[in-house]
């Protein structure tokens, strides 16, 4: 690890900070959302699923572009925020967090949704008959039984945020220690024909992703809950 410059380190630290923040927010947000999607029979369910899933198929630049339009001082959300004296989300760490949350949402909701869908209705009914109300059932039955899905979701959400490029490029810009994450740093090295530095960062990212996924699929899956159905 000879060629890691202070700039590179700053990008790495920023990336980890961004991915951790986003993952934490996503887990808190997605767990109830996934449970609602599993439970509800409302007509509202299909549109919500469609909206949540959209980042899967849309090019990140499209998302980034609309965020840019929406949040710019003349965009409707941007102007509302401005009148409320909230600092602009564009080209800021907070802005990156908000957009990354939306961008990575489907990758976190999906595994949690699948895990929760696998919980037999009978198990929940048993809990109800012994006196557990809906909130109680969520914490005492649903959460523990979907733990493997939640852990997988956290890992996927983290990796996905680390790998994000298009959205960041569009709304984050290139401010060191603020918005200059690893993928941007690599892009900059390549632009400057600094292939050696790009190799070091890219190679470590490949290795990191491989190790995380290896651990997820080979160890965690089995050890977390041997009796999980499916």
């Amino acid at each position: 690890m000879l060629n890691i410059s202070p700039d590179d380190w700053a990008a790495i630290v920023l990336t980890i900070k961004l991915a951790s923040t986003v993952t934490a927010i996503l887990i808190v947000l997605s767990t109830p959302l996934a449970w609602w999607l599993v439970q509800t029979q409302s007509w509202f369910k299909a549109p919500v699923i469609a909206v949540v899933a959209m980042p899967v198929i849309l090019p990140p630049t499209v998302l980034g572009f609309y965020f840019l339009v929406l949040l710019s001082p003349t965009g409707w959300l941007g102007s509302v925020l401005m009148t409320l004296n909230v600092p602009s989300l564009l080209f800021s760490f907070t802005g990156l967090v908000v957009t990354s949350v939306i961008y990575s949402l489907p990758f976190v909701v999906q595994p949690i949704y699948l895990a929760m869908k696998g919980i037999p209705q009978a198990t929940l009914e048993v809990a109800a008959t012994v006196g557990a109300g809906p909130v109680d059932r969520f914490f005492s039955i649903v959460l523990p039984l979907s733990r493997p899905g939640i852990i997988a979701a956290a890992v996927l959400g983290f990796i996905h945020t680390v790998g994000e490029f298009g959205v960041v490029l569009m709304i984050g810009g290139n401010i060191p220690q603020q918005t200059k994450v690893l993928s941007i740093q690599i892009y900059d090295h390549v632009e400057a024909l600094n292939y050696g530095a790009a190799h070091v960062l890219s190679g470590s990212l490949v290795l990191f992703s491989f190790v995380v996924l290896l651990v997820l699929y080979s160890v965690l899956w089995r050890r977390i809950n041997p009796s999980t159905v499916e």
Partner: protein
Amino acid sequence: MNTCVKAGLSVSLRWPRKNFDIDLELTLPAGVNVLFGPSGSGKTTILRYLAGLDRDANYVGQVRVNDICWFKAVKGYKKYQLACHKRSIGYVFQTPSLLPHLTVKQNLAYAIRRSAESQPLVALEPLIALLKLAPLLHHMPHQLSGGEAQRVSLARAFIVKPKLLLLDEPLSALDALHKQELLDFMVSLFATLNIPVVYVTHSLEEVARLAQTLTILDRGKVKHSGQAQGVLSNLAVAATLGRNACVYVEATIREYDNPWCLIKVALGDAELYFPRSVLPPRLAQHNTLLSHSNNPPVRLKINASDVSLALQPPQQSSIQNCIQGIIDRVWLDELDAHCLVSVDVGGQIIIVRITRKSFSELALACGTSVFVLIKSVVITG
């Protein structure tokens, strides 16, 4: 029935459905009330309705337990519904269903912590001993056999001290040996309770051992309902049971052992002899020295196919168990080789299934005095 508060359940439900409508009204006392009927007659639907597990906008009816309203819906009016988790019930499902991520002990604790009348797990020791759960307490549900898991489910249903106990074919997933064992447990457990128990089954053996009242359902409607003994001795009911028709009668065991290895049973004035093997395990271990007067009454289950009729007491026959009675009612069906005859023996009814040919050749009729020959019985406790 609204005038005095005593343990009991009153339920009514009118519910139009795709294949058949549920339309019934029942008042059931404390004790074991069996719902009996073919698959798909609406038994489980009623249990789930009582538990509040299904919510359907088209329900019309009410549920009152110990005269407290749990559910009420009148057509076109706002309804009152107590959520399932607020109803004080114990529910044993058809297939054992424990919370898969908790040990047996934690499963029991889960229920206790949420029950209205909380009590320490220690108070459960008699129950744990009775259901032989001690060695299983630290097992996970997936390590248990079906019978073990169902024992835990039973314990869980009992420890919350429910106001209403609902059992949906609790023995159907078990093999014969565990069935017997669990049935014995239930007989002794139910004896200690003073709450209404609704027990769904289609096993006549379970009816004979447990039922206090018996309700026969068919396609969502009540066909017959009343004291179990009375319902079973109704010939219309027996006719639908065909070769499985049976009754049970009260009797007393007089001797547990004699030189012939038989037990002596008094049924009214008659004395009958049966091999010890007809005794349930609980009584088989009974001390033979018990004084006669202390012997508790037992139930004899008599299958209609295991008895026959004679006009004279048999003189030279291997069948020696014989009891005199008077023909009370007859059920004849021109399209059936057999007919059913109910015989009044000292106030109790025995149903006899004989061929129509014998019925005609013996010139039997209501009021004829006959001898009932009993080939075998089952003593059910």
